């Protein structure tokens, strides 16, 4: 026990001797929370729309008018010429074309409406599909309004009421903040331990520990505990910053948020140690770690939903600890889920922690 205390003192001194470290631990989460929640939005706004109006009736003008005054669209122009509009789409000066066919109004009044066509640039898949959904909605709305004005009751239009649960205001930010905390922990608790150990290897100072009778497990523990503390400080700072800036607090229990973080930090830093044990230079370690972290970040469901991945990828995510941690964080933060609701995820995370922790202790060799 005393050995551990002494080793811990050494680790903390070593960490904070580099003036860059304390700055990183405080500034990194603050900056991330300040900037990235604004970025991480897939809300589609400012879709640039060009209207091709071949009908030139009061209905077609009503449609253009509605698009012009919608907050979602940036109205470009009305033209009669489809080719001209298409050229603009190719030059990336407009995102979508609404083409109103000749005699639309007439055919609608007769009861068998011609079809309006919407063409959207789908290189950005989300913008393309959400934009065209909005346009569908707005053209439908205009046609309905037009019919009601004319006093035609023939078409009964059902009213659809949408009620959104769990994130009533539909703020994308709130959805991203838990994921950003996950990302921060992946980066800080993955890279730093790996760099720390390999740096000692490169400088040769690890030799001094290797010749002492300190046990492998005690040495590993002394390496892991400082990053545990650092990780929790990072989490605390991010939660506090997101509360100050965005007023978001976990709707579940605080204790459970921290409990999940504690388990996940063990998983990440133990993985960092395993990577460090297998590499002899900093560059080697950082490339291995970068590879692992990219997969954790991009496939863990942090930024893109797991449900929309192909089947093989969905199965693959089952072996990613970040997936479980992300589920826990989002559910606890937004839906107020408890540890009982998430027992499977907690169990999976704890299992990863145990496996990586054991691996870290086993793969550490005193002799090279």
């Amino acid at each position: 026990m005393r050995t551990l205390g002494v080793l811990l003192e050494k680790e903390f001194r070593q960490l904070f001797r580099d003036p860059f470290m304390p700055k990183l631990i405080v500034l990194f989460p603050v900056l991330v929370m300040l900037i990235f929640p604004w970025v991480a939005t897939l809300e589609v706004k400012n879709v640039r729309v060009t209207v091709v109006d071949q009908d030139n009736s009061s209905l077609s003008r009503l449609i253009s008018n509605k698009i012009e005054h919608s907050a979602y669209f940036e109205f470009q122009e009305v033209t009669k010429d489809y080719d001209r509009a298409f050229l603009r789409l190719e030059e990336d000066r407009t995102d979508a074309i609404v083409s109103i066919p000749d005699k639309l109004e007439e055919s609608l009044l007769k009861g068998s409406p011609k079809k309006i066509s919407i063409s959207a640039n789908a290189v950005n898949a989300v913008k393309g599909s959400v934009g065209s959904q909005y346009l569908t909605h707005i053209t439908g709305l205009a046609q309905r309004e037009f019919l009601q004005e004319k006093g035609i009751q023939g078409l009964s239009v059902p009213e659809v009421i949408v009620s959104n649960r769990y994130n009533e205001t539909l703020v994308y930010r709130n959805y991203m903040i838990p994921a950003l905390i996950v990302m921060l922990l992946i980066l800080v608790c993955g890279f730093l331990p790996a760099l720390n150990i390999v740096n000692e290897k490169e400088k040769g100072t690890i030799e001094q520990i290797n010749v002492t009778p300190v046990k492998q497990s005690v040495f590993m523990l002394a390496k892991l505990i400082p990053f545990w503390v650092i990780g929790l400080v990072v989490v605390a700072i991010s939660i506090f910053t997101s509360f100050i800036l965005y007023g978001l607090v976990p709707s579940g229990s605080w204790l459970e948020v921290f409990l999940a973080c504690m388990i996940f930090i063990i998983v990440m830093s133990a993985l960092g140690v395993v990577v460090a044990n297998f590499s002899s230079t900093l560059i080697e370690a950082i490339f291995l770690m970068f590879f692992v972290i990219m997969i954790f970040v991009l496939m863990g469901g942090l930024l893109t939903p797991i449900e929309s991945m192909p089947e093989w990828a969905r199965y693959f995510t089952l072996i990613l600890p970040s997936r479980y941690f992300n589920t826990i964080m989002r559910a606890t933060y937004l839906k107020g889920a408890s540890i009982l609701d998430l027992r499977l995820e907690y169990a999976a995370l704890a299992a990863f922690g145990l496996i990586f922790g054991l691996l870290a202790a086993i793969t550490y060799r005193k002799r090279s």
Partner: protein
Amino acid sequence: MDASNPNTAIQGAAYLQGVILGETTGMSPEIRLLFNPQMKSSFNFVPGIMGMLFLIISAMLTSVAIVREKERGSMEVLLVSPVRPIVIIFAKMIPYFFLSCANLATVLLLSRYVLKVPLTGGIVSILGVSLLYIALSLAFGLFISTITRSQVTALTISAMGLIMPSVMLTGMLFPIENLPRILQYLSCVIPATWFIDAMRKLMIEGLAFTLILDDFFILLGMTVGLIILAQLRFNDKLD
């Protein structure tokens, strides 16, 4: 609707509304999605991943190049020799440049034959822009190397510091036009933004090289600027 993810909720709701309206009134319009008819996100993702990978991998490689020699003391030998700093900078860049070319070839082959990205804009212009971008990233790494004192700091900046901006601010996942104004300006500073924009046009939309000239010249300007900066900072350390 479970609106934890607002986008899924909005799209789902709009889709259901559309179906209900279409069924009852026959007023649903006809939708055509251009350039990417199957709505494959992976098409859009490939240029993004390329932009991030090359930036971080190349920067990581060179960010330790000078600082390692500083740490080990072998830099002294170079400094007392009559070699000019700009020559040292280029000599540090060129081996990694060839290494990254292998990287580029792998990525392009994978995207063509595994992901079936069209690459319609001509392989020559795609290669040209990518090579310029790699040079830029290497120069960026060297710049980091000249301003840091230890390998750990250099790697922390180039790996940890670059991941988040290059994933979030470059239009790889989140369209730039949706960002608040200030962040749009910030995204202009990140080289990956311009590279991804150019690559999207070349690889997916199949536009001609003349339509991405602005991206090209911005990248070129950034490369030259970073090399000059690296050289200036390098001079500072001669004492």
